[in-house]
């Protein structure tokens, strides 16, 4: 691999959190959108997607649970690490915890990423087409699945309070670090 040329990656994924509310779905939808507009620089709306500086929210769904609470699912695309940080910290300022599933596409050095994940991991499994690890990253527990054949890496992680999203535990920082290990840039 040519180390002198940094690998560009595409970051996309989903943030999920629960909402306990008596308000209607529609009002909640508007509230969440407003929350993002306050924390992220909103540029424009395009065909159902909300374009912010540093990333796109391609879908915002509120799913009703059996107990009446709502689960918000926010799908994002073409995200920069700072967008991930702002998105998670915005949701954590109003809602309890969120779980992030974030994918990074790029022709990384997947062997290096594998060695990093294996080293000191709580759990590691490998198949012909993928490998997966659970590992501590500073104070956070991360779950990474990698599909080298598809040039795809997925990070899953839970964030419980706003403190969680500060350096070095912020999602943007974690993803940046994984990318750097693989010889990439974000």
């Amino acid at each position, binding site marked *: 691999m040519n180390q002198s040329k940094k690998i560009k990656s595409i*970051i996309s994924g989903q943030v999920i959190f629960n909402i306990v509310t008596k308000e209607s779905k529609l009002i909640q939808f508007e509230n969440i959108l407003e929350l993002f507009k306050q924390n992220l620089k909103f540029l424009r709306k395009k065909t159902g997607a909300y374009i912010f500086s540093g990333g796109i929210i391609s879908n915002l769904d509120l799913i009703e649970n059996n107990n009446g609470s709502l689960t918000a699912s926010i799908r994002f*695309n073409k995200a920069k690490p700072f967008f991930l940080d702002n998105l998670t910290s915005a949701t954590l300022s109003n809602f309890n915890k969120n779980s992030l599933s974030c994918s990074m596409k790029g022709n990384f050095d997947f062997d290096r990423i594998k060695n990093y994940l294996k080293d000191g991991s709580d759990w590691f499994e490998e198949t012909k087409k*993928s490998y997966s690890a659970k590992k501590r990253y500073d104070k956070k527990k991360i779950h990474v699945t990698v599909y080298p054949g598809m040039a795809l890496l997925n990070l899953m992680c839970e964030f419980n309070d706003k403190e969680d999203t500060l350096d070095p535990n912020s999602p943007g920082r974690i993803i940046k670090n994984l990318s750097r290990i693989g010889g990439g840039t974000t």
Partner: protein
Amino acid sequence: MSLDYKQKYSFGADYGTSYFKFGSILCGEEPKMIENRGYFPRNDNIMHNAFGETKDIVVGDEVPLYLQAKEDLTENLIYPMKNGIIEKNNSRAWDVVKTISLYGLEAFEPTDNDFEGFNIVASLSSIAPRYMYEKIFQIYKEINKKRKLIKAATVISQPLSVAIAHKVTTCTVIESGHGNTQVCPISHYPIRNAIVPINRGGGDANSITAEILKDLGYSDLAREEAFVLRAKEKLGLIPVDFEKSVAKAKKHPKKFKNKFKIPGTRIVVELEENTWTRFLIGEYVFDPNHELFTSYFKRGLPKPKDIRIGDLLFKGMLDFGEAIIEAVERCPVELQPHLYRNILLSGGNFCWEQPSIQLKGLATSANSKIKLLLRKKGITNVNISMTNEPQYSVWRGTIIYGYAVPENYNWSWDQLEGWISFD
């Protein structure tokens, strides 16, 4: 099937006419894409038996490694969804569908202990008959017999999936893929009687691009599909007014100059005084009825034919504006203005580069072109939007649908929605 489970193990499978786009929810916003085809290699020769791995059907990135003589291709390279429909008894085509489905699921099979199978949302053409739904479920059942890869499955139509991906419940979706185009009005659900299928897609735009390249002296390259596709994407322009744009380009060819170099080669394509042909590519996609195309048909460009599949007539030469009007006018009068007010363009055939500012008034975008075609026919109050990355919007819709549909929503053959459980 909790939301936590769905967050990890939802899976989308878009069975397009030429490409199969698949992937788990962990893919983010871009699925994996392979050609929707399968190759049946001849396994009766010594080389295969002694040195090669014998496979009944080859799919995915491996296909080129197995291809044999050109004469075999027509018979042994099968594109099962060529028109969005597979005949019930076409066992080879269904075998390909089974193999690519398994290929996709295995590619994302997780190692985690909590994995009990994917919740798969398959997307089929809006004109797919009921037996295709039955066959897909049957294939999933057969896949599960060997290894449990599927926990629950559902099937939705491609235009509905596009509408879901963009949170629109009343709209007209034009899904234009490589093989064909479907114009489908949606009012919470696809209005099946109003669907207008067109036997023309991105593959036809490739064909005219190949003819143009041949005329320019690139005959050898014009036979290579990958090259033609690149040339189409780099050179094609959608004209505002075909005749005016062509006339202007003939008069001032330099204004429309666009050199295009194939990466990794020394090949540079230059159109010189023929820059006007750039407009042929764009016009042909939206409206192939101009007399200029006749000379190409006479010289061997395959004219998009009207074909009948089952009860449906796929028109070959219908322009996209006329097709939208035909579809919308089959719906209740009160609904029609709403359908015009929200037209969604989706599919790889709408992936066009924005024309440069210097070409303003001569070249335009796909949505503006459709607007112009409708305006010509007296329809003015329209709103047309292009989906983001149109080639992926069906797959994105399958993922959102899979995540959002409650687990206790059982499959209904009347509504064609809900989950079939494989537990």
